[in-house]
């Protein structure tokens, strides 16, 4: 008969049972958002959510949840219910989200490579820093077309063109006493003609072919921006801010829960705990539009809410209600699993 062993490392822990079949439940505290869904779904009451307000706001050493390894039976319900994969059950080394018989929450965030223009709006807005956008800019010299020539007979090496050039394309080199050489790097030059206009000796002849004749010389393929926008699955909480701000509608976020968020402003005493705990930056103190204006106590952007319920758990005045009206999960034949997943509705 196997007993469970627990291994703790700082705030993370693993619970293992290794009799015939090896099962391991691992918990990553940094990923945990303190929603307490694991505590709610556990069929043997082995999980306890800690005082998340204090833990998150005061940098405590305590982990957000505690699992009693003597009660835990490594069934995996907490792992399936967790909306951010902070809990992960592995059976014989394989995570249960890869095992067909186990249901999974339907939850995803994807950026379409075709539509993305790598503007980085998603990277900037993501409250979890889960998005990384890498981009390779086109070669500037391929996007301009023109001619430039400096008449070295006329040039008096005053250096005014070098100083004025916005692209640092002109270089005057001192070769000896009062002997200079002037050159233009045509890879940098954008044919803006500022040097030509500024030259006191009219020593520069230049023309921008694009301005004069049109852009037929420029190859549209050369102006394409290459890049890759990646969402880190371990960090993403499916808030949907990226989808909200994307100017090209290139992001699709599917949330596991549907629901309603309500704040009772009568009970709220603006302690800010809900604002600090929310992983999705849904809640905020409103900014007054003019000095002395008193607005609502707390504002919400409910579109970004994932209905995790952490705010409800943390509010010291019970001013927040989070209702979950729909749970999205892959089909399962197990009636007990269906029942427990449905029990997450409130």
């Amino acid at each position: 008969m196997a007993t469970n062993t627990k291994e703790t490392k700082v705030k993370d822990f693993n619970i293992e049972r290794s009799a015939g079949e090896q099962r391991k439940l691992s918990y990553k505290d940094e990923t945990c958002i303190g929603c307490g869904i694991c505590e709610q779904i556990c069929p043997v009451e082995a999980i306890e959510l800690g005082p998340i307000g204090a833990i998150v706001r005061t940098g405590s050493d305590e982990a957000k949840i505690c699992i009693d390894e003597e009660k835990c039976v490594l069934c995996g319900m907490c792992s399936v219910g967790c909306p951010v994969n902070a809990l992960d059950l592995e059976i014989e080394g394989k995570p249960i989200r890869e095992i067909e018989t186990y249901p999974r929450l339907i939850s995803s965030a994807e950026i379409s490579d075709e539509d993305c223009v790598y503007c980085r709006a998603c990277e900037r807005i993501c409250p979890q820093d889960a998005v990384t956008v890498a981009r390779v800019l086109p070669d500037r010299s391929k996007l301009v077309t023109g001619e430039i020539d400096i008449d070295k007979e006329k040039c008096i090496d005053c250096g005014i063109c070098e100083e004025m050039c916005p692209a640092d394309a002109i270089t005057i080199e001192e070769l000896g006493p009062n002997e200079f050489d002037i050159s233009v790097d045509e890879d940098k030059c954008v044919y803006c003609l500022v040097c030509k206009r500024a030259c006191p000796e009219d020593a520069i002849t230049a023309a921008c072919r694009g301005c004069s004749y049109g852009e037929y010389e420029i190859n549209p393929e050369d102006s394409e921006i290459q890049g890759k926008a990646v969402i880190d699955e371990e960090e993403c909480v499916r808030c949907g801010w990226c989808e909200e701000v994307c100017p090209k509608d290139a992001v699709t976020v599917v949330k596991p829960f549907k629901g309603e968020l309500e704040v009772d402003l009568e009970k709220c005493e603006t302690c800010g705990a809900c604002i600090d705990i929310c992983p999705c930056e849904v809640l905020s103190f409103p900014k007054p539009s003019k000095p002395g204006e008193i607005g609502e106590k707390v504002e919400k952007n409910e579109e970004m809410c994932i209905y995790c319920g952490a705010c409800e758990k943390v509010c010291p005045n019970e001013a927040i209600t989070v209702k979950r009206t729909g749970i999205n999960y892959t089909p399962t034949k197990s009636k007990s699993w269906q029942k427990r997943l449905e029990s997450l509705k409130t």
Partner: protein
Amino acid sequence: MFFVEIYINIETICVINTQGVHMPKHIASGLKYLAAVELTRDGYSQKKISKMLNIDRSTLSHYLHGRNLSLSSIEIAELIKEFTPKDFLVLTDAVIEDKEATKTIVKTCLIKKFKVNVLDTCIGCGVCVETCLIDAIVLDNLKAQIDPELCCGCLMCEDKCPTNSIKIWEE
């Protein structure tokens, strides 16, 4: 009738009766003998029986011809056969030290039949699978499946089930 005491601890198992102390290997031999007799009656060949019970053929042959086995070993074994299924199973498993032979002995010697029902409250945690000493349980689609043919009615899985989803009763 003789007085029997049984001491079971982690290191040693021994059965004491008025005729002296019996070491585990004697008890094991007695149990294997009983199973061998049953299996012979059921028509199994000696070759098959020796494999099922993990004893070499010559030893088996001696046993079946009443040699190399003390009467008291057999008596002890007969007594153990009358224990509750759980005690019989646990003791056999402890002295036999061979999973397959234990399974054979338990299946052969226990004549009681059991009915099994796993309720829909089963969560597929697998604790029963680990608990069952004779591998009568597997998980299928997150639900325990217990083979009633193999089940010996020890009820250890029923005891350990965290959701009280296992019901086993005598037919």
